[in-house]
């Protein structure tokens, strides 16, 4: 589904985002992306949706080479990927409902489809009652959940989440996590960048660890830290 081959991204002169990363993620996998602050997790994600472009190496998503992809095709790539952004990236002038609906409207979804799908996903993330609020009128965690809802609503084949639980309390986090897990079980590939040690440890999924833009660990059924390797204290949730 996703293949990174020797990908390097340097911001400006000398700020290293990713450093010769090679990585392959299969269809239907669930991958945790971990690493200290500034290790390149968001850079990885931004490269995947071609928000930025690699300096070296090739990136393939769903069989399509991003390096040679024409500018005009990029919107279609992005529609096939659901993305939860670290800073939410909600449209400030639109209500919660309209923010989620926008992701459907760009694909040409009918008003009927929108009327059906949006309330459905909003109730899944627990925001049914806030459909008519503006992003400014939401708490941090609520905004984060809107971003999650928008990424899910299209039922994309690839789902990327950059710290989707950073501003959520443990209970809500587990709810979102279960949602991601259920989506993954239907065949969607899920990549999730996170700092939530508890969650990663509990799920025991594939963990890709970055540091200073380099791949420092890529392990199946693993925990947040290397120290915990193999020490699967809890079985996968679900």
């Amino acid at each position, binding site marked *: 589904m996703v293949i990174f081959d020797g990908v390097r991204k340097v911001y400006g002169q000398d700020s290293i985002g990713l450093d010769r990363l090679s990585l392959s993620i299969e269809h239907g996998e669930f991958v945790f992306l971990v690493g200290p602050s500034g290790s390149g997790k968001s850079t990885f994600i931004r490269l995947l*949706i071609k*928000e930025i472009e690699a300096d070296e190496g090739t990136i393939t998503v769903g069989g399509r080479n991003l390096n040679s992809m024409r500018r*005009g095709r990029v*919107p*279609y*790539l*992005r*529609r096939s990927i659901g*993305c939860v*952004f670290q800073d939410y*990236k*909600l*449209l*400030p*002038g*639109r209500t919660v409902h309209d923010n989620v609906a*926008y*992701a459907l*409207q*760009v*694909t040409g979804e*009918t*008003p009927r489809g929108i009327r059906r799908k949006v309330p459905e996903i909003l109730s899944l993330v627990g925001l049914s009652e806030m459909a008519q609020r503006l992003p400014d009128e939401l708490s941090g965690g609520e905004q984060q959940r809107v971003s999650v809802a*928008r990424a899910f609503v299209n039922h994309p084949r690839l789902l990327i989440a950059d710290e989707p639980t950073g501003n959520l309390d443990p209970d809500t986090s587990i709810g979102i996590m279960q949602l991601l897990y259920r989506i993954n079980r239907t065949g969607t590939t899920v990549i999730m960048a996170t700092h939530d040690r508890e969650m990663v440890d509990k799920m025991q999924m594939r963990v890709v660890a970055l540091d200073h833009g380099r791949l420092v660990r890529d392990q199946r059924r693993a925990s947040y830290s290397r120290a915990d390797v193999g020490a699967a204290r809890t079985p996968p949730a679900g």
Partner: protein
Amino acid sequence: MRPGFFLAEALRSIRANAAISIAATVTVLIAVFILGAFIPSFLYVQNTVDQQKDKVDINVFIADSATVQQVNGLQRNIDGLREQGLVRESTYVSKDDALADLRERLRDPSVLEELPSNPLPASFNVLPADPGQSQQIVVALQGHPAVDADLGISFASDTADRLLTVARVIQYAGGALILVLLVASILLIGNTIRLSFVARRREVEVMKLVGATNWFIRWPFVIEGILFGLAGATVAVAMLFGIKVLVVDSWAADADSALTRNDAGTIGFLALAAILVAAGAIVGALGSGITLRRFLRV
């Protein structure tokens, strides 16, 4: 369904960004208003001056002693000048015509009754093709034996010069100003629309990240631009109409006003309104469409 969606999006954006909407509309309003006030004023002044300029004539006075042959010779000379393109028109005014003329122009024509004989000379009234060339015509006809030695050839050289000066100044200054105003309007509207995008750059970025194509983002903005253009231009036209009805027409109706005697035409209001509104909409649409290009390279 799509046009409806884009229109709805445009209206949503207008409501959500009140400050920007007002600013853009006010800019169009001002630009259109100034053009709308300036263009007819300029045309009116220009036409007034032109009309007055056309009335500048030359009188070639004929000596009472001139023979018919001499007068015919003078007539041929003038016809020659017409063939050269210097003279537009010439009329023979007999002594009787002149007296009749004078009688008409006097408040109290009775003074004329006491005249023992007609003291007025016959003349050719010559309209120069170009008032600037009057002097040339005078030189060409001067000294002809049929011309009255005393009265000679009279032409309002000062009047001609004055009107010509005014006409030329107005034409150059006004033309230059209209050009400046046009360019300025387009720059100002483009400016405002560009600023309105700076305020919404992040929004456009997010739209792109969610998978919107360039045209999907652009259409609502273009429609928004058209609506700003239409709204601004319409209000400007309404204001101009108000001014026309309340001020200009009431001047024109005032019988004592010097303006009444002036039938210089200007551009018709409906034509002007149509041009201004259409221009507003087009400039708005182009302003939005073009400005957006920079922001769509996200």
